[in-house]
Every structure is written in C-alpha cells, then in structure tokens.
C-alpha cells in the first residue's frame, strides 16, 4: 500500500460527504455491486447511516443502495471536499 497517499474508502465517508470511486478491491467485491453502478470514476454520496455506521445508505451514480460497512471498506475513493 502506498503510504504517501491518503487511502480513503467509502467506509471513511461521513454523512453528506462525497467522493469519486478510484479503485475497487476487485477479488472480494461482488459483481452485482459493480453492475449496480459501483465502478471507478463514478460519484458516491453517503446519504444516511444506520447505528454504528452500518449498513451505509449511498447514492452511487444515481443508484440508491445500502451496503454493509465491510463491503464499503473495499471500495477506494478520492474524497471530494465540501464546496
């Protein structure tokens, strides 16, 4: 892992924050998630979290999905700063 670069995943997002998917840990991510729009280059916004921040309710590329935190931690993003 490149320690010089900050590595964020969707699991690190806070409510209302957004990011661009940069990379996905491909072996462990179910194809279904990709098919639902979770692909590099697409924007993610964390809309809502259940208690303990798990599961996470996301808007990925216009799709509204909830995934468990363990899955969210496998999707790397570049965080977008608040404007």
């Amino acid at each position, binding site marked *: 892992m490149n320690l010089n670069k900050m590595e964020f995943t969707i699991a690190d997002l806070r409510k209302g924050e957004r990011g661009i998917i940069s990379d996905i840990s491909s072996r462990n991510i179910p194809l279904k998630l990709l*098919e639902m729009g979770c692909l590099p280059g697409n924007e993610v916004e964390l809309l809502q979290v259940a208690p303990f921040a798990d*599961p996470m*309710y996301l808007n990925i590329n216009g*799709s509204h999905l909830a995934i468990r935190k363990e899955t969210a931690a496998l999707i790397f993003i570049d965080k977008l700063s608040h404007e």
Partner: protein
Amino acid sequence: MSKQINVALIGNPNTGKTSVFNALTGLNQKVGNYPGITVEKKEGICKLPRGVKAHILDLPGTYSLNASSLDENVVIELLLNKNDKDFPDVAIIVSDVENLKRNLLLFTQIKDLKIPTILVINMADRMNRKGISLDIPYLEQHLNTKIALVSTRKNSGIQDIKDLISNYRELSVQPCLDTSTIDSSYFERLAKAFPNQEPYKLWLVITQDVNFGKMTRQELDVSKFQTKSEGELKRLQQKETIKRYQFINKVLKEGQTIDASKATSLRAKFDRILTHKVWGYVIFFIILLTIFQAIYDWASVPMDLIDSSFVSLAEWVKDTLPAGIFTNLLAEGIIAGIGGVAIFIPQIAFLFLFISVLEESGYMSRVVFLMDRIMRRFGLSGKSVVPLISGTACAIPAIMATRNIEHWKERLITILVTPFTTCSARLPVYLIIIALVIPEGRFLGLSYQALTLMFLYLIGFGMAVFSAYILDKILKSNHKSFFVIEMPGYKIPLLKNVGITVLEKTKSFVFEAGKIILAISIILWVLASYGPGDEFNNAEAIVNSQHTTLNNLELEDKIAAHKLEHSYIGIIGKGIEPAIKPLGYDWKIGIALVTSFAAREVFVGTLATIYSVGSADEADDTIKNKMAAEVYSNGAKVFTLASGISLLLFYAFAMQCMSTLAIVKRETNSWKWPLTQLIGMSAIAYVVALIAFQFMK
C-alpha cells in the same frame, strides 16, 4: 405456425415490472413454481388483435444475467435454453425512467443474446417531476430497439407494448456491443471450439459457474473448455461491465437530459425521518403495533364468522344426510378439515395486505436498512425482520415472506426459527392453561396472568433469535454472503398490485397447504373414530352397565369419552404416556398433544371431548372447570402449577403445526428441513418442559 407469441418480461427489481405484467394480463394470470425449485413462476395471457394471443412470463427481477440467486438463475437458464417451451420469441425489458442507466445494463446483455427485444420505459409520469427528458427516436436508433414509454399508474402506453408485441418480427436483433473485444484471443478460441454458438452465450455459460454454481438445465457442455482461472474470469466480467456502462453512458449523453434544477425529491425528506437513528425505530415500532392490532382485531370478525359457518355446516350435514360413516367423515373429517384451513384466510389476507403496501411504498427497504446490523449478530439478515414479525400472527405467511432474502443460508435460518414466535394458534391454549394454573394477583399493577402471557411471547421470540445464533454456527454455506439492497423511491401503492398480491398469496396458501391439512384432518378423524376390540365396539353397552343413574346427555358424553379412550388415537395416547409422565401429563393430555400436531388450537377441543364435555355446552369455563377437577386415581390434581407451566413451555417451543411443516417443505423443496424443525423443536420443548416440571413439582 403457432398463433401464440411467447413473451418474457425481464427487468431490474423495483422497476414496476409486475405492474406492467398486471396491466398486460389483468386477472388472466396464474402463479406456480418452476419445476424442482421454489421460485415463483408467474405467467398470463394477453390478447392481441386478429385473434393472436401472447403468453407472458413474468421472470424474477434481476440486475443482470450474471445470476447470484436462485431467482436470477431462472432468468439465465431460460434465456440460454432455446429448447425450453417458454423460450421467448420476444423479450420485454422493463426499466424505470429514473434509473435508466442501471436498467440498460441488463438490456444490453439481452440484446447480445440476439433475442428480439422491446424496451419499456416505465414510470413516465415521474419524468416532469424529475426534470428528465428523453429523445426516444435517438435512443431507439442507437439501442437497436423499439421503445414504449409507459406509465402503469396513469395506464398509458400499454397499447404501445401490445402493438410492438404483435409486430415483434420487425424488431432488430442486432447486438448493442461486441463482448468479444474484452479479450479477443480468448473469444476467438471459444468460437473455434464451438463454431455454431453465439460467443456471448458461451461466455455466459462459462462464467455462470463462477457466479452461481453449476447450471442444471443447460444444453451446452463447456466443461472441457476451461482455460482461465476463476480470478481471470472475474476480472473479464468486470471489464465487460465497465464496457457496457461506457456504451450506455455514450448513448444516454445524447438521448437523455436531466435538469436537476427541476427535480423535486421527497425521498430525502422522508429518508431523514424514516431512517433516523431514533425516529426511524420509533416509527417502525408504531407501524408494527398498528399492524398487530389490525390483524388481531379486524381478522377476528371474519375468523369467527368462518368458524361458526363451518360448525353450522357440519351440523347441518349431520342432521340432513342419513347417518353413517360417510356423513361422519364428511362432517367431522372433511368439513372440519377445510374449516381448519379457511380460518387462516383472514389473517393471511390482512398480513399480505400490509406487507405488500409496505413493500410497494418502498418503506420495507428502510426497515431492512435499520435492522440489518442487529439481525446479523444472530446469523439473520435485515430482511428476516418481516417474517419474524409476521410469525406472531401465523408462521405460514411469515415463511412465505422469506422469499426476498437472497442469501440461502440466512433465508433457511429465518424459515427454521420463525415457528418459535408465538403465533395466534397458541393463544387459545395459553389462555386456558393460564386461567387454570396461574393464580390471580398483581405485581406492580399488572396481573400475574397477563405477565405470564407476555413472558410467553418474549421467550418465543428469544428462542427464535437464540436458535438462529446456534444454527448460524452449525450450518455451512457454500456461497459467500454479501448484502446489498436497493433503496427505491417512495411511491403510493397501486391498488391493483396490492389486490392481486393478496389474492394470489391467499390462494396459494389455501390450495397448497390446504391439501395436506385436509389429509391429516381425515387421518386424525379416522384414528379417533375407530378402535380395535370389544372395548371400542361395545362401548355403549359397557358404559350403560357401569352408569345406570345418568341422564341421556351425560350418558352420551361418557360413551364418547370411553370410545375415544379405546380408539386408535386413545391407544396412541396411552402408548406415549410413559414418555410424557415425567413432564406431568396424563394420557388424555397425551392425546391432545398428538391431535394438536395438526394444529395447536385443536388442544382445547380435544380435551373438551376427552373430558366428556358435551357439545351442547362447550363454553370455555366448563372445560376449565372440568380440567380443574381432573384428578389422578390417587386424588392428586392433574393440572397443577408445575404441570401447567410445563405444558405452557411445551406449547411455546414444540413444532405442532402440520400447515407450517407443509409450507416449509414447499419453500425448501425438501423434507429434510421440516423434519429437522419437527425433531429439533420437539426435543427442545420436551427438555424444557421436563426440567420445569421436575423442578417445580
């Protein structure tokens, strides 16, 4: 040439596919199962001009042709098998105007199979509100298809679909993109090995093993062509998905404009409250209470009506038809049996009414979201909440409601533990025993009796969760669990959809489970009405000689009781007495245990008969008084606090419901699981009741 056109309705979940199906077929539809599996098969007929009929098959919702559940696998197996009698002449892809991008992924896959395809863009009535406009001619041209813009809510566009089906031969079968470019050399080799097959079709067959496991009904054998590792295949599938999205993005960039400034969304506002960390749970709890209240309150009226009509029907049959075996079988066996099925109809109908409203409105996904974390600790899924709650009314619709849990292990555990929740059939048993053995008195203003009842509900739920936890540790799962749920937009439920769901689910319960309940009722009747030897056959003479002072009514009761004792079922009761004695029960309770295997509420009725309470005065307190007066030969009471508690606990845990076992058999498609349930739950019930009695006596 056949005049019937085979049409397959395919689409992502939550696109209103079922609404389109209902709009095309009306009530002209039937629901069955695919052979060998429990996936629901919905088909119907749609009448087209010039006497042509379209056979419409509503396939399970799927996000792509790469199946990850049994439901999705049905879709791909059908589309890959040209010999299947349901193989579509034309495929209709139903998409939702708000999620067109994602919906088109499946569309491009179907197109690559070179099946004539119609694209239905549903929920067109929401376009204005969402600021979406579409260039239909552009989209038709670039997607090589014909498009029907539909609103099932406004009932518009349905005729367009019918016209397109009629003229399906004019549809293009040109694929949208060339899959083979993801790895040209691999696909070239594939084409060489199977020169007569579509490359994309081969690719699907090969990757299906990676995704889901062996296909069962494939016509192609690709087992000899395995030149890539699973990891490589997975990477290629990802590449394929990315390529498809690139194509879709390119087309939509021109063909679709979204003016975000015009979009108004209620979603965010509703979500802020309904998925709130505190308010979300409070609202969920209030909705639950309302549903329970409604099911108990509203359903009790029609249930009483059904009950009394069947009782009077049975009486009428007995009075009208000539006396004899056939009349008795009809009145006591068959009519009582059908009544036993019909009595559940109101609760099932109400429950499915609420469930389908919650599902159609989009709220159910929010509940799943809220509950997933908690349920996961016990090997369940957020999606298990609905069945566990429904189980408090009746385990049968609850088990039917597990179908949307995509992970087999989580679904199986939910099915197995749901019967622990206190269903309404346990209530009459609880009420009479509590009244009998729990003393009156109050603790903190609450009566002991009410507290006992509440405790019984709590241990039922507790045992369900606890056994889920144990099963989670024991059961092995062959595919990995992951959880993703789409959070659909909020919608007002369509009356037609809700109505059809309630009708279909109720029908399927009555006919599927009904057959088995009826059979068991008849068997029980036979066992209770016949017996071997003199004691049974000469019961009248024997009782008459023993009791000479009784009046006729009392005498008849005595004769009935004597006959029962020496009937086959009485012999069974006597036979199991040694086993149930340590639990504090006598043989008469034993008979009630055996008969209440068909359904728990039979317990009270059986004891009523055995304690020779005449049918003339079958009021509860009479049974209660008789039960209270029941003594062993040494004068000790049969129903004490110890034996009463033991009995309550036994009924709390034991699997005594034929109908549930029948449904579990149907849903798991094997006798293994209902038998596991029967043996496991009965064992738990026995041990707990034994410990309770031995400690308290």
